[in-house]
């Protein structure tokens, strides 16, 4: 078969589509239509309602409420703002349980034996008189039992089950007795880390009992004895709506609970059925106040705080208007706190070795109560904060609540940011007056700072506050405290560019850091400070220009340092390029540190991010005309960041870039080009992924060709073929993406080979042969790859056989094959022999394909290839018709590809016939 003579330029003109200049850019925005569509979108957004969200809350509630509470009750509970707070309360409870996890073992010195699994005692109790509700067996035992937390929790769950079971069996007295016993557990605060968990478990049971009682009385009010509905209570009923019998039952419950001897269980149970006051009277505020007063009798601070917390929770079901009871709660807790604070000697020293721990346990209760105050009452009583001594005259303050820093802290947390910033100076003064052990003041200052940042105060009002704060923290010796406060105010300082404060703070940090190495907490704050600084400035240079910035950066180590470095890199790489040699050096150093700290412990994400940032940095480095220095830098990078595989690609790309730049800009580039190529030749083999290697080899080969180094190019193409070999050996089959990539790379390689002079010692067809042999060596390679590559080889030899090649290397020093072997018969012989070899293999490869459709399309592809490359001859048509037959047997007769190929075939054969005739 003979290769067809091609007229590439003529064919291109013939095949090109007619072109018409366009008036508009197709992607340019069309202003008229887009505004209209925006308007429509805006309208739609207004009444957008997420149906999923509504449903999920309902489901969540159903799950929470459990089976005892039916729909009616839930409706009452969830009316108004109660809806939100039930959710919040659930969250709060779970946080309570998690926050104070304690050791697994709890030593129990119970006054009641309820946790012992001894049920025979309960049986006789049912018929006892109310008077004896107090456990007559109450015995103070000094001995302490130790049980596991799990046992404790499961025992309480069991008790809950027992109570609801007893209730359903109409044994309400037993249910009440068990509930009292459960409430009595809260008397014991000795396992005080466990107390919050215990509290949550116990009030769970209390709430259940409360619901049961409420339901029972409601039922009495709504239904007659025989179960007929006589009156349906509205949601907001008045006590006048309730029949006397229901009232009687309700009052009886309060009497029963009133006869409990011990104070704390009595209060808890009354709180549990607090809602039932609604049946008896419309004025239940007095009861709330009385209960708050009664809680003063609970001397144990922890028990008292949680009791107040439970009241705040229960009272919300009544929707009280007045929040006086909450204020009273706070003041009671405040008095207890003050006692803890002031007391220097052994206040229950055997229990609370650590006062701070105790206070931290009480804090959630204070916080929740404060939250309740602000949920209900802030709008209604605008002068609320004056109760805490803020906004009023401090000297003649008649405080209801003792000023204690932990209470102040909770208050500040709930206050709206504007209120805080309006009274900031006063609040700061208040802090100075309330220094106690309950909460370190720096937390308060920090909170103040955060609130100030939130509200963006005007500069004149922020100034004095900052003065004050800086003055206060200058007294701190502890670096951590100093940092925590400074960090909170940094935003404001930066926002108003108060450079004076900034330098004061930096000096302060350095002074305190000299004393000792920063520990973990301090590192965290330092990191936050530095990240804020880095993020604030537009350019990194501004941050460097600050005094002491680098010194403070040097204080960091470990992961904090890494995170800061990443922020710096991110900032640096946000600009187009990095030119400043000092900056390059600095960034290089931190990148190196970042790189060196990569180890197994890093998560994949973390590693990815680091690799990305470093790669991006290297990518952006620009030495301008100093290309040699740039290459040196790349070499340094390769040595420094050897862990990062992705970076090597970038390095090769960059070195190629440099080479191209050198070729274009300078006259004597050869040695530099060679060093670039050498760099690449060394770098590429270290990349593990063969496909990427192959890409890079080919890219480098192109550069080499561009620079006129054809022998280098040849070597590189050879390496690429070797890669292909490795690729096939290492993996039997590849993902389709990889297959496509391999195919396109191989095709690209073939097209490169057109330009590379075939002065190889083994002849022009050496590469084609080695390609075929690589493929044949790999019997498992998919026939699709084989067919495509064999076609490519045929195309390659057909092109090379032309008297004028379709394209040439740009560099004049590279001589094209057409000139080199013009009219050389052995050259053409070589080419036709290689194409024959490829043809033979092609047939085998098509036959190997098992999938019918694929086989058909491969046959068609081969057919097209042959028709394009060879002159029409009987042998060719025989072969092609054979291929078309294969395709016809595999494909649908109306397949487009098949039809167009058949047409093409017909056209070629007609031409031939014409020529013959």
């Amino acid at each position: 078969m003979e290769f067809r003579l091609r007229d590439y330029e003529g064919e291109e003109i013939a095949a090109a589509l007619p072109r018409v200049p366009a008036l508009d850019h197709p992607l340019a925005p069309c202003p008229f239509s887009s505004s209209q569509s925006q308007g429509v979108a805006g309208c739609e957004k207004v009444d957008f309602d997420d149906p999923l969200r509504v449903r999920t809350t309902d489901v969540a509630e159903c799950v929470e409420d459990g089976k005892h509470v039916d729909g009616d009750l839930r409706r009452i509970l969830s009316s108004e703002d109660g809806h939100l707070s039930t959710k919040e309360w659930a969250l709060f409870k779970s946080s309570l349980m998690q926050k104070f996890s304690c050791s697994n073992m709890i030593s129990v010195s119970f006054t009641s034996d309820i946790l012992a699994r001894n049920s025979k005692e309960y049986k006789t109790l049912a018929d006892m008189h109310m008077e004896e509700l107090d456990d007559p067996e109450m015995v103070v035992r000094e001995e302490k039992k130790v049980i596991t937390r799990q046992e404790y929790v499961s025992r309480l769950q069991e008790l809950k089950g027992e109570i609801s079971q007893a209730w359903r069996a109409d044994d309400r007295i037993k249910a009440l007795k068990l509930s009292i016993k459960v409430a009595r557990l809260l008397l014991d605060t000795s396992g005080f880390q466990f107390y919050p968990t215990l509290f949550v478990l116990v009030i769970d049971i209390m709430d259940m009992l409360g619901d049961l009682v409420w339901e029972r009385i409601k039922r009495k009010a709504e239904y007659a004895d025989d179960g007929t509905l006589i009156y349906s209570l509205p949601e907001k009923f008045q006590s006048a709506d309730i029949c006397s019998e229901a009232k009687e039952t309700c009052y009886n419950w309060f009497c029963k609970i009133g006869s409990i001897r011990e104070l704390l269980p009595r209060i808890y149970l009354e709180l549990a059925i607090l809602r039932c006051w609604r049946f008896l009277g419309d004025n239940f505020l007095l009861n709330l106040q009385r209960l708050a007063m009664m809680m003063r009798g609970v001397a144990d601070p922890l028990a008292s705080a949680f009791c107040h917390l439970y009241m705040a929770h229960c009272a919300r079901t009544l929707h009280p208007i007045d929040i006086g009871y909450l204020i009273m709660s706070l003041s009671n807790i405040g008095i207890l706190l003050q006692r803890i604070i002031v007391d220097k000697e052994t206040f229950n020293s055997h229990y609370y070795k650590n006062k701070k721990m105790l206070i931290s346990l009480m804090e959630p209760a204070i916080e929740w109560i404060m939250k309740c105050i602000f949920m209900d009452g802030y709008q209604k009583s605008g002068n609320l904060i004056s109760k805490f001594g803020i906004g009023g005259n401090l000297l003649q303050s008649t405080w209801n609540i003792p000023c204690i820093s932990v209470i102040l802290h909770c208050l500040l947390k709930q206050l709206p940011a504007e209120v805080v910033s309006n009274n900031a100076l006063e609040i700061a003064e208040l802090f100075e007056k309330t220094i106690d052990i309950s909460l370190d003041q720096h937390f308060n200052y920090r909170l103040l700072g955060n609130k100030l940042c939130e509200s963006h105060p005007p500069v004149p009002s922020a100034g004095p506050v900052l003065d004050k704060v800086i003055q206060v923290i200058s007294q701190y010796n502890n670096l951590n405290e100093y940092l925590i406060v400074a960090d909170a105010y940094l935003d404001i300082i930066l926002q108003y560019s108060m450079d004076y404060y900034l330098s004061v703070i930096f000096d302060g940090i350095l002074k305190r850091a000299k004393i000792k190495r920063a520990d973990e907490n301090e590192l965290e704050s330092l990191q936050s400070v530095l990240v804020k600084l880095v993020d604030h400035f537009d350019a990194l240079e501004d941050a460097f220009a600050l005094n002491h910035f680098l010194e403070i950066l040097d204080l960091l180590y470990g992961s904090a340092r890494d995170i800061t470095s990443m922020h710096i890199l991110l900032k640096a790489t946000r600009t187009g390029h990095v030119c400043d040699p000092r900056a390059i050096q600095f960034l290089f150093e931190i990148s190196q540190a970042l790189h060196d700290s990569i180890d197994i412990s890093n998560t994949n994400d973390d590693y990815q991010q680091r690799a990305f940032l470093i790669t991006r940095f290297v990518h952006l480095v620009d030495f301008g005309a100093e290309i040699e220095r740039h290459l040196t830098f790349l070499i340094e990078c390769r040595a420094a960041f050897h862990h990062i595989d992705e970076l090597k690609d970038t390095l090769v790309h960059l070195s190629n870039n440099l080479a191209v730049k050198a070729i274009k800009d300078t006259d004597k580039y050869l040695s530099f080009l060679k060093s670039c190529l050498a760099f690449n030749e060394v770098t590429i083999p270290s990349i593990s992924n063969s496909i990427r290697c192959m890409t890079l080899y080919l890219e480098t080969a192109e550069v080499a060709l561009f620079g006129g180094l054809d022998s280098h190019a040849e070597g590189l193409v050879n390496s690429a073929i070797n890669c292909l070999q490795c690729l096939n050996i290492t993996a039997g089959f590849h993902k389709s993406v990889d297959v496509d990539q391999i195919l396109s790379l191989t095709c690209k390689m073939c097209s490169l080979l057109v330009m590379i002079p075939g002065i190889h010692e083994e002849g022009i067809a050496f590469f084609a042969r080695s390609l075929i042999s690589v493929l044949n060596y790999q019997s498992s390679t998919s026939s699709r790859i084989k067919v495509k590559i064999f076609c490519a080889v045929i195309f390659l030899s057909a092109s090379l056989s032309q008297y004028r090649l379709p394209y040439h290397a740009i560099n004049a020093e590279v001589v094209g094959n057409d000139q080199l072997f013009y009219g050389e018969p052995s050259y053409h012989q070589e080419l036709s022999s290689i194409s024959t070899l490829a043809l033979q293999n092609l047939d085998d490869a098509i036959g190997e394909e098992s999938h019918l459709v694929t086989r058909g399309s491969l046959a068609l592809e081969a057919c097209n290839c042959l028709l394009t490359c060879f002159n029409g001859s009987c042998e060719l048509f025989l072969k092609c018709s054979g291929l078309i037959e294969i395709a016809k047997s595999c494909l649908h007769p109306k397949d487009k590809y098949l039809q167009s190929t058949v047409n093409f075939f017909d056209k070629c054969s007609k031409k031939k016939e014409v020529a013959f005739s």
Partner: protein
Amino acid sequence: MSIELKLSRPSRVYRPGESVEGKIITTLTTPLSYHKILVTVTGAVNLQVRGGVAGVIESLYSAVKPLCIIKKSIEVASSAGKLAPGRTEIPFSFSLSSQENGNHGAFYETFHGGNISIQYLITADIMRGYLHKSLSATLEFIVESDKASLAGPPVSPESVRFYITQDTQKHQLLPELLTGRFRITGKILTECSLMDPIRGELVVEASAVPIRSIDVQLLRIESILAGERIIADTSVIQTTQIADGDVCKSLTLPIYVILPRLLVCPTVRAGPFLIEFQISIVISFQSTLSRLYPKSDLRTPRPWVSAYLLSQTIISVM
């Protein structure tokens, strides 16, 4: 064959002057002829002196003759008749008017105490002649005095102030107490209605020894005129803790005691018997001794239960 009594009010509470309505319900399998059907109402104060409280001699004739408040019989069916098998309801009614019980005393409220009990019973008898045993059923009903009919304001908010100091006490811990000050003050209502809680307040002003608990005890004093002497018996009917632990000083603690139902009645000062109530405030201290005797009656003086103060406040319950 059963007979049952049922009153018009499920709570069975009636006030003097009201008429009590009810019915006798018979459930029979065979017809039953009767001679007559009688409903008897009895109200009596039963007095009894328990052994140990009084002397040996008194305990010999321990049961003092009960005082009758009301006793009357109503013939529901005066002439002989026959009851059909199945369920039959026979209504009856009578009034609790004070004119009718003429020579007897006033209608005291129903009360079940230790030594004194005031009880009102309805008994229904179906007489069946001499050959057959008569069928009968008994039901207690409760008499409460009519609060609305009381003259004047229902409760005069009369209260007393009390002081408990080291001087008011004779106590083993006294030397220890004297190292610092000990003073508890407060006030408490002396009169209140049955429906209302006893309110008051208490302030621990100073205490040298830490306090363990403060309890309010409600005491009942039943006095009986037996022969020529009055035998009084005091019993604790309810203890209510108002402070648990060493409470903060100078903080007002509320006293809030709900009166237990059935165990309390309005104060009665009748000739042959008295029912009165007292409040006492018990302060116990944190002391090593207290651990040794955890279970004890708070009334018995113990070294650690200090300042056992009987605030001699008689609660006039109305």
